[in-house]
């Protein structure tokens, strides 16, 4: 490929015989090994300030990060939602290896659940004067309902389709995503069709003189502490909860079953893994996290219509997972940040009468192609920990004092080949 490198110019005949290739080591690995080397209290000492720093970013708005074309708080809120989506999709695609191209369908189901229950345009509006569905509490009450309904949707979709594998599953899920959008578009009696549902409920907190509808209202646009920032904080809390729960799953029988299914489904089944059951769980958990994100979205923008749930969004979500590194739950959050932030950052730059941000599909397409050539495992490749009590094992690891790569030679191989 590269002609500058003399070593690469002449193909090495032993290259084919090499067998397993070494894993590429990058920034992610350096951070990971540093982090794992810390004791628990030290991890807290570093982790909490980092989280706090991320939380105050949209209030502080450092000039290098600020998005001139659009409100940075709103961008960060969108980032939190995409981060949730990336975590959910990562369970399905990254961990269990089930290619889901219709993930936006679950996002839509979550958003529409909240909208249908609280919008005045909806025939199923359940808003009441007081109680759980009062103006103040309706959004929060809808949250578990939205999660439950999307989880159920995932179960319904998964039960027949998870008998399929690979490409076939991808096509069926692609169809599902479209079906949900088309239903939203065409069931005009229920969903108000293309006109969408407006005045969706949101938490009415912090109502003051100058913010009559509370800090979460879309009307709260002024200053550095606008509604976007507040929604970002809500989203961040959910991201952290989702990370903890998904992390618990990863280091358990469930996470191991997912990775085993991804690696070799037949072998996993023969080793006693109930593959169908755990695939269904992955699908359901992924769906419910997607639904949660959709509910967040509905609350933030307080208006939804079907165009927000185009199938191209599924591709963007998948792009976030692939760029970040499939299987790495922190990596995919970085992927989500890239997907959300870069187009918004480039919004104010105009090329040929078009905002550069509108070219995002072009650039992400290119980025994916380049990534697949040079770093197919994503920016932050997964190095999953699949054991709840693996720490004691890793503490007993003795590394050879010399450079890596000169460890004990595998038995039966003493001849130096290649080089």
């Amino acid at each position, binding site marked *: 490929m590269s002609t500058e490198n003399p070593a690469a110019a002449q193909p090495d005949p032993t290259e084919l*015989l090499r067998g397993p290739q070494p894993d590429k080591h990058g920034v992610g690995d350096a951070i990971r090994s540093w982090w794992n080397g810390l004791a628990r209290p030290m991890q807290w000492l570093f982790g909490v300030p980092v989280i706090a720093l991320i939380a105050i970013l949209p209030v502080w708005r450092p000039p290098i990060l600020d998005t001139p074309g659009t409100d940075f708080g709103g961008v960060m809120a969108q980032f939190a939602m995409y981060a949730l989506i990336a975590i959910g999709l990562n369970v399905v695609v990254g961990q269990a290896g089930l290619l889901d191209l219709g993930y936006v369908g679950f996002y839509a189901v979550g958003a529409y659940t909240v909208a249908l229950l609280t919008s005045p345009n909806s025939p199923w509006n359940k808003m009441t004067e007081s109680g759980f569905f009062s103006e103040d509490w309706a959004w929060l009450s809808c949250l578990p309902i939205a999660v439950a309904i999307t989880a159920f949707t995932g179960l319904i979709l998964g039960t027949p389709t998870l008998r399929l594998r690979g490409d076939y599953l991808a096509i069926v899920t692609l169809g599902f995503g479209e079906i949900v959008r088309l239903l939203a578009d065409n069931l005009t009696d229920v969903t108000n069709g293309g006109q969408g549902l407006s005045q969706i409920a949101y938490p009415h907190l912090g109502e003051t003189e100058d913010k009559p509808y509370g800090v979460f209202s879309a009307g709260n646009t002024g200053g550095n502490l606008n509604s976007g920032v507040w929604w970002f904080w809500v989203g961040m809390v959910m991201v952290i909860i989702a990370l903890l729960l998904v992390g618990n799953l990863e280091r358990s029988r469930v996470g191991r079953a997912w990775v085993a299914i991804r690696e070799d489904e037949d072998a996993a089944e*023969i080793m006693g893994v109930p593959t169908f059951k755990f695939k269904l769980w992955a699908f359901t958990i992924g769906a419910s996290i997607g639904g949660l994100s959709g509910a967040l979205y509905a609350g933030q923008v307080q208006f939804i219509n079907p165009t927000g749930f185009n199938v191209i969004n599924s591709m963007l979500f998948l792009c976030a997972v692939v760029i970040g590194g499939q299987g790495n739950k922190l990596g995919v959050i970085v992927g989500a940040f890239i997907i959300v932030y870069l187009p918004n950052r480039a919004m104010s730059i105009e090329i040929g009468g078009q905002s550069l941000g509108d070219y995002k599909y072009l650039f992400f397409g290119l980025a994916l192609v380049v990534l697949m050539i040079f770093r197919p495992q994503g920016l932050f490749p997964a190095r999953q920990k*699949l054991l709840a009590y693996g720490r004691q094992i890793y503490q007993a690891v003795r590394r050879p004092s010399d450079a890596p790569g000169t460890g004990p030679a595998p038995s*039966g191989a003493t001849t130096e080949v*290649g080089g």
Partner: protein
Amino acid sequence: MTAGPGAGDAMFDNEDMAANLAPEVDVPTAGVVDVAAIDPALVDPEAVAEAVAPQREIETAEGQALLKTEGLTVRFGGLVALDDVSFEIRRGEILGLIGPNGAGKTTCFNAITGVYKPSAGRVMFDGEPLAKTKRNEITRLGIARTFQNIRLFGEMTALENVVVGTDARHRTSVPGAIFRTRRHRREERDAVARGMALLEFVGIAPRAVEKAKNLSYGDQRRLEIARALATEPKLLCLDEPAAGFNPSEKSALMDLIRKIRDDGFTVLLIEHDMRLVMGVTDRIVVLEFGKKIADDLPAAIRENPAVIAAYLGVPDDAIA
């Protein structure tokens, strides 16, 4: 699939291995695990053997039939891969299943472990027919296997691979894992302890944190055996475990198979290498063209004219 080039490939046969033509695997090592630092008990082979087979004291009915095939037949379209094969595997023995290439050994194996559904006949395990049981449930019943072409979970470490095997006996599902219930924590602790014991048992405990795909070929074969043993099987089926081994590795493998049997497991062994089969098995079943042609003690098999004819062919003058 994930084992990379070499595993079970024709390119890597015994001669290559013996001539040290095996590729240098130039992978940064994940480090060597200090086994004694994790659990000092793992230094004692007795304790390891005890941890590997916790239920071995219960296996008392030695010599009774554990698995029985009755008229087992497998057809692929018009091809009869396995034709009316009946034999039994007795508790506590090592049964060899041999035959020339294409004799139906692996098909028989797959029919027993539920990969293929028999076209006719049935498999009785522990007195129960296996007919409608799912593959993962067959593992839970107590049949574990290894693969002719190594099929480890390459991205997992050696220990994690083994723990997947122990998970076959675990009950924790999603709710238990999310809320980290007491049962989940107990199972996880047991899994790590037992996993390390199993790795020590097959002799690769220091490599516990290495990704399976980065292990050497011989270690991958051992890991497959450890993973199968982790499911606490009554019957362990080994599909050509010595493929691609040099003579010294083969004799080490024979020792390991004997050690497994002595630990209370019943072993079904498919193998090409006659010396290994004759050296380690208690009884041998010979297949040819899908039919059983002999079922006897190793010494008798060696003298059996039908077996000799199957392996060496029949001289022209003998046919008339």
